[in-house]
């Protein structure tokens, strides 16, 4: 069943019409990717879902519950958790503290400890650096931490905004490996990426966004073969 459904979303920045009727859905356990060029509205879509931006029209539903009237922090508590673009870990807190902060909305200490174990299993490196200040981690480790922090909230849907941005190629591979692992564990993910090639490799389905509109949607494998997608986003001539 669909966990998350967007219907005809219109979002504005002041007078600028950034999203022009975006509709999409995410099924349980699936990775859906949103690809598109600069300024197409990928991050705007994620920010609208997570409540950082208010849509002017349209509806967002999580398990058939309308999210429009909830504030950003309430949406997190409902299980839609975003990993913001550019990582943005709490640089002056330790790795462990960052992870604890991720579980801010959860009341039960025993469950939090369990999630912490899961995150450390997924990212053994974070366990090694538990007591270190997050600001002193490398870029790749910070991305792991940002993802771990989001997982601590036990998300029903994980929104990943450009996880590979600014990382060395080796690290990009390792981040996408992690996304695959999360997929295997059954996590539902909406992934926004500039690196369309990698995104379409891990995703089940994809949406192509152009100037605030969805122009194409299909199975990821089909999109990879699609000629216009290849030309525009995969660099195939």
């Amino acid at each position, binding site marked *: 069943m669909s966990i998350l459904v967007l219907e005809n979303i219109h979002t504005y920045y002041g007078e600028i019409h950034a999203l022009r009727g975006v509709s999409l859905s995410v099924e349980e356990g699936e990775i859906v990717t949103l690809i598109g060029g600069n300024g197409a509205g990928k991050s705007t879509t994620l920010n609208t879902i*997570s409540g*950082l931006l208010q849509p002017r029209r349209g509806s967002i539903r999580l398990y058939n519950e309308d999210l429009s009237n909830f*504030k*950003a*922090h*309430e949406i*997190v*508590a409902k299980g839609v*958790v*975003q990993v*913001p673009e*550019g*990582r*943005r*870990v*709490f*640089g*002056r*807190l*330790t790795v462990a503290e960052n992870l*604890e*902060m*991720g579980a*801010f*909305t959860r009341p039960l200490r025993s469950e939090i400890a369990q999630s912490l174990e899961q995150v450390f299993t997924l990212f053994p*490196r974070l366990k090694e650096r538990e007591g*270190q*200040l*997050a*600001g*002193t*981690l*490398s*870029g*790749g*480790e*910070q991305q792991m931490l940002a993802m771990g*922090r*989001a997982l601590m*909230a036990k998300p029903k849907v994980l929104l990943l905004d450009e996880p590979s941005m*600014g*990382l*060395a190629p*080796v*690290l990009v591979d390792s981040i996408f490996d992690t996304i695959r692992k999360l997929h295997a564990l059954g996590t539902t993910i909406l992934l926004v990426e500039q690196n369309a090639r990698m995104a379409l490799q891990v995703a089940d389905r994809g949406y192509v966004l152009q100037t605030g509109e969805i122009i194409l949607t299909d199975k990821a494998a089909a999109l990879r073969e699609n000629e216009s997608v290849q030309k525009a986003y995969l660099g195939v001539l």
Partner: protein
Amino acid sequence: MKTQPATVFQTSMRFGLIGGGAAVLFSLVGMVEVFGQRTIIGGVVSMGQAFVAIAMLLSAYAAARQLSSVSSSAMLTAGGLTGVTVGALLAALVLLGTSINIRDVFVSASPPLFELLSFGQSPVPGMLLLLVAGMTMGLAAAALLFLSPAMRSTAISVLLAVGVVGLLADLLRIIISQWAYVAPLVEWVFSGKGLSVPGALAIAAVVIGLDVLANRRRNKAHNLAALPATALQKRMRTGALMALLLVLPLLLGTYVSEVLDQVGLYVLMGLGLNVVVGFAGLLDLGYVGFFAIGAYVMGMLTSPELGLASLSWWSALPIAVGVTVLAGMLLGVPVLNMRGDYLAIVTLGFGEIIRLLALSDALRPWTGGSQGIQLIAKPVVGTVVLDDQLKLYYLILAGCLLAGFISSRLRDSRLGRAWMAMREDEDVAQAIGINLVATKLLAFSVGAAFGGLSGAIFAAKLGAIYPNSFGLLISINVLALLIIGGMGSIRGVIVGALVLVGLPELLREFAEFRLLVYGALLVMMMLYRPQGLWPEEARKLEAHGDGDNSNGDQTAAIPA
């Protein structure tokens, strides 16, 4: 290695010019002369001379340390040369000042200044003496670097102890003569306005003795693998500290109690602003507004003069604090979406608005306008009226302890975590499920409550309040004491208040140069100790970590 002489020369020149420039500046603004009236060791060193000596010592020490990897002769040369440079700049000042009249521009360039700088000699031998003094100080500073770390720290402690005791000689003399058994010591330790020579030697001996003992204990602890303090030890330490705080004003007399009261009021405000700025990261430049509201509400409710109400201090207190909390929320609402500089400007305006409202004629029936409010009630406990410094000290102490306790519990609470996350990154804080509106408003109201409490006590202490007691300078002072002590650190607030409020009160001559010293102190702090004098543990980690990437959004190219 051919460049080595040039390096030595360049280094000495650089530090010498910085130190000399500072010494000349301090002379020209009048600090050296004013402090020349205070003696550290009677008939030997005055505070003014000590100032010059400190400039020489510090710059030579810095120069020599920079060359510590080259060779010991380079260090000595640099030390001496730096000292001589400082001396030469001062000598040039003496030459300039005694040959032409520069007093039209520099009011403080007075004959006593030059007499002091030339050690009471006529200019030419005086100038030579300055050079010799520079050389000696410089060599001594460089020589310090050859000592073992333990010995070096002992030497520095001795200098500091003699300096501080000498500086506060007047005050200490009065205090000690009140203690029956040790009173006879006074005549022996002090002479004139400073220490006597045997007194200085005795203090040096005591400091050395204590240092040796401390070192021995530390070595022993090392051997036993430095056990962490047990719960019992901690409790005993807290108990001892409490006992000390309770008897302190009794031992030190009225004047010091007055100073402690002021420090205490600033500690209260500091704890409040610490919640807003230190914990939650909301830069508030109008903090004095809450202090003023607390004081004014207390005045309005208790002063029979205005005829509004004449409650007792205690029954007015919850109202005063409550109104301040409300004001904190009211300020919070319009600035919810503001950050950084914008927030600072708006809060700055808030502080001024409160002061102007208090001053305004329209509100005269309630606030007394420029005449302020008199006859404010004193707190009464049982049958005791808290009407002097000593009794109020205990009230202020109780307030500080309460605020300190609340602060520390809040810091470790869920709310404290939310504040910390918000301070680090507002957007992400929201993205991990923190309610920004509630979190911000709570920060403002808790901060306001402490400020209001401080204001209410302040009003009772003076018995009268006037609008111009609530100027911008108070906000600046409170913020500066947070920076000096360590942003976000509760114990840092106390250290900061002692340094910024206590010291200037004890060194009355300072008052005139307060802002100059603040400025210099803040710049030095930012350069050499940005985490503050006594920071929280996490901040220490940050300052000594191998990379500072506080934004967390830069990327390291090398995969780790």
